[in-house]
């Protein structure tokens, strides 16, 4: 049996299960559990063979499937007439999942602002919607690291490591950066690392910066590769209720 593999499609076990059910054109309430389990396992094997990390979610689903399969194999005991079909254990969540996919589809069919329709003054917030979604920053982590390396290179021509007690905590640095951003709204990356800052402080400052970005309190922009990165405060200014 051959499989049509589009790995990026199967984001999770539910996705894969749904694909198998569609492929086999079976009724979700009468799933041929043996067939589907076998195919599910075969798919996991294939993922392993392709050196793809099989997420725990897939393994959990596989064990659920096998559990159901084993239940189905047990002979019917007459006194348990009212016991429900063990397959419902996956049929229910699958159905729920199908409904969600349906809803997601309906949402995406709407007149989406910034894609299908545009308001007269596009608020700056909306521009954050464009471009790829997994990169919330205009400058990515590699650009950040590059910029940091440049700073370290400038300051420390000869590498010199000294260990001492932590003098700056990341939290302190975060507070400092936030305080400065509250004053100015925007800062340049360079400004965070003034002349004469020691290596450990540089590092702590950089970690604080990463943490701020991670928490979504900062937005970074880098107009082009060699220019300095601009830090924009994204401090809570919720227009929303």
């Amino acid at each position, binding site marked *: 049996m051959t499989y049509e593999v589009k790995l990026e499609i199967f*984001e*999770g*076990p*539910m*996705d894969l299960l749904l694909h198998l*059910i*569609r492929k086999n054109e*079976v*009724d*979700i*309430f009468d799933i041929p559990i043996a067939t589907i389990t076998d195919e599910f396992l075969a798919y996991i094997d294939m993922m392993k063979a392709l050196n793809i990390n099989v*997420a725990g*979610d897939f393994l959990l*689903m596989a064990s659920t499937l096998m559990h159901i399969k084993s239940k189905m194999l047990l002979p019917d005991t007459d006194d348990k007439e009212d016991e*429900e*079909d063990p397959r*419902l254990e996956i049929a*229910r*969540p699958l*159905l*729920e*999942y*199908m*409904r*969600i*996919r*349906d*809803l*997601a*589809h*309906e*949402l*995406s069919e*709407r*007149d*989406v*602002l*910034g*894609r*299908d*329709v*545009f*308001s*007269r*003054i596009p*608020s700056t*917030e*909306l*521009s*954050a*919607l*464009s*471009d*790829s*979604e*997994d990169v919330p920053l205009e400058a990515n982590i590699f650009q950040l690291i590059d910029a940091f390396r440049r700073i370290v290179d400038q300051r420390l021509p000869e590498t010199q490591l000294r260990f001492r007690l932590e003098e700056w905590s990341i939290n302190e640095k975060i507070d400092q950066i936030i305080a400065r951003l509250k004053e100015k709204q925007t800062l340049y990356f360079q400004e965070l690392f003034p002349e004469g800052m020691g290596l450990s402080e540089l590092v702590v400052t950089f970690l604080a910066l990463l943490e701020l970005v991670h928490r*979504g309190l900062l937005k970074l922009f880098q107009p082009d590769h060699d220019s300095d990165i601009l830090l924009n405060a994204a401090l809570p200014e*919720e227009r*929303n*209720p």
Partner: protein
Amino acid sequence: MSEKLQPILEALVFAADHPLSPREISDWLPEYSIRDIRAALNALEMEYGSMGRSFFLKEVASGYQFRTKREFAPYVLKMYKTSPSRLSQAALETLAIIAYKQPILRQEIEKLRGVDVGGIVRTLLEKGLIRIVGRKNLPGRPFIYGTTKKFLEVFDLTDLNSLPKMKEIKTLFSNGEGAVPALQALEGTSDAIQEEAADEAAPEGPKD
């Protein structure tokens, strides 16, 4: 008096940077009632609708806003030099779950989708489409998520009640061998199923 009101509203909505709600407008025009303002905006909406312009007035997120028609999107995008905003399938599914099941915990979202959604939730938070509405009194005090006003704006919804209705396929569970063709239900093409479901149970709207 609405002859005077209408052009004022038109000017306000035209110059605003977000959808203007009748309530908001009434703060600036205390001499008019919210009801009058709403009526005038509705009339204006109809008027623009019948004018055949490239933009229209639309009620979104409980406010009114001018928006360009869908067919002109390619030109506007060209002007902005951006590609249209896209959410991945995974992000859309997660957003749909939050929209319909809010207030909801991340754990509950993961149960429905069967995968970790941490990264996606963060992305949606960053885009301002969802927000943290509180914390649940459970071990670890997990965050509770809900959608934002911006979600309504982006997806052209007046309010949460105007979300597309969830299709109820409950019939299947009540009588064990209901045997509904899964594929049809999936494609959402089977009207018969929907009607059947409608008889069985009124589709539930989103909880607030």
